[in-house]
């Protein structure tokens, strides 16, 4: 396809997304953003941010899951995710320690959701063990279930599952890869340790 034809297609696609939004025809809007942990995909419903995905998860596969679980009318549209993109930029630039965004937790349920709702209690730059997290939710024996809840967190970074580690201090797992988890922990640690804080 020529560059002109590609441009024409881009314009047509973004006009389609705007008209679809005006008519309330979009179930899920999504956009991509660059970050120190690689490209991220952000997706939102009319209720709020519903998914943050890492490149390793395969964005097209994530779009497929959103189509299946939320609705097939998934379209690229940046505007509903501008605030989230800006806050993530600030977070990665050390100028933000918490997020003020509406979140749509519909991809989780049961105890997983309970754990994910409790995760923001772990403050910026702090970490807890899977065992402590289980105790924090009032189910001290549910260590393994906490691990599952963290591993299936649909809103990583915004819901800070990266702050949960193994009892021996080793990293445990992470959807975005251990390297990403380490980058996030170092970033938060640096800011707390830095002279400007």
């Amino acid at each position, binding site marked *: *396809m020529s560059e002109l*034809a590609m441009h*024409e*297609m881009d314009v*047509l*696609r973004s*006009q*389609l997304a705007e*008209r*679809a939004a005006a*008519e309330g*025809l979009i179930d*899920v809007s*999504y956009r991509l953003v660059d970050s120190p942990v690689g490209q991220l995909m952000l997706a939102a419903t009319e209720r709020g941010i519903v998914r943050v995905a890492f490149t390793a998860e395969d964005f*097209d596969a994530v*779009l*497929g899951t*959103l*189509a*299946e679980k939320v*609705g*097939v*009318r*998934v*379209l*690229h549209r940046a505007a509903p995710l501008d605030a989230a993109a800006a806050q993530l930029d600030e977070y990665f630039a050390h100028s933000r320690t918490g997020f003020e965004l509406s979140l749509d937790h519909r991809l989780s349920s049961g105890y997983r959701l309970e754990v994910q709702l409790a995760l923001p209690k772990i403050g910026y730059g702090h970490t807890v063990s899977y065992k402590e997290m289980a105790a924090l939710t009032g189910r001290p024996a549910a260590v393994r279930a906490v691990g599952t809840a963290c591993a299936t967190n649909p809103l990583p970074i915004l819901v800070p599952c990266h702050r949960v580690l193994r009892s021996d201090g080793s990293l445990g797992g992470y959807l975005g890869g251990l390297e990403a988890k380490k980058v996030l922990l170092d970033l938060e640690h640096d800011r707390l340790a830095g002279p400007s804080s």
Partner: protein
Amino acid sequence: MTTNPAFELVVRRHGTSVLRMCTALLGPGPDAQDAWSETFLAALRAYPALAAGANIEAWLITIARHKAIDILRANHPVPMDELPESAVLPELTGQLEMLDSLASLSELQRKVIGYHYLLGFPYADIPAFLGGNPASLRRAAADGIKAMRSQHHEAEEES
């Protein structure tokens, strides 16, 4: 498959070929772009009700065909009692890439083929849009199809 793909993937996969079809029928520019937009907006409205695993390309072609006819009618206020029967050339529905070779035909050949094979107008109705007479238009279409076939075969031999 329990669900159809995310609509974004439908646009990504078929957006270019639908635009090619609209452009072949309506010429490059605003009419083809309008037909494209109306096609995908109508498709988006209806998409949740489309059976899982349906032939999405054929479905889009049907919608695009109606949108193109709407625009042709708006541009050429000629009496037409009913929508023409669908008479899509099988070779064209199988692979919209075939429409690429439409671009190399003369404008008359391209339009006659589009109106007759994609939109389903009988040759007797086409002079209302393009002038000429049914016999000359039929010849133009036959020449165009012949040219497309030979191009298509050359392309296949090369690949």
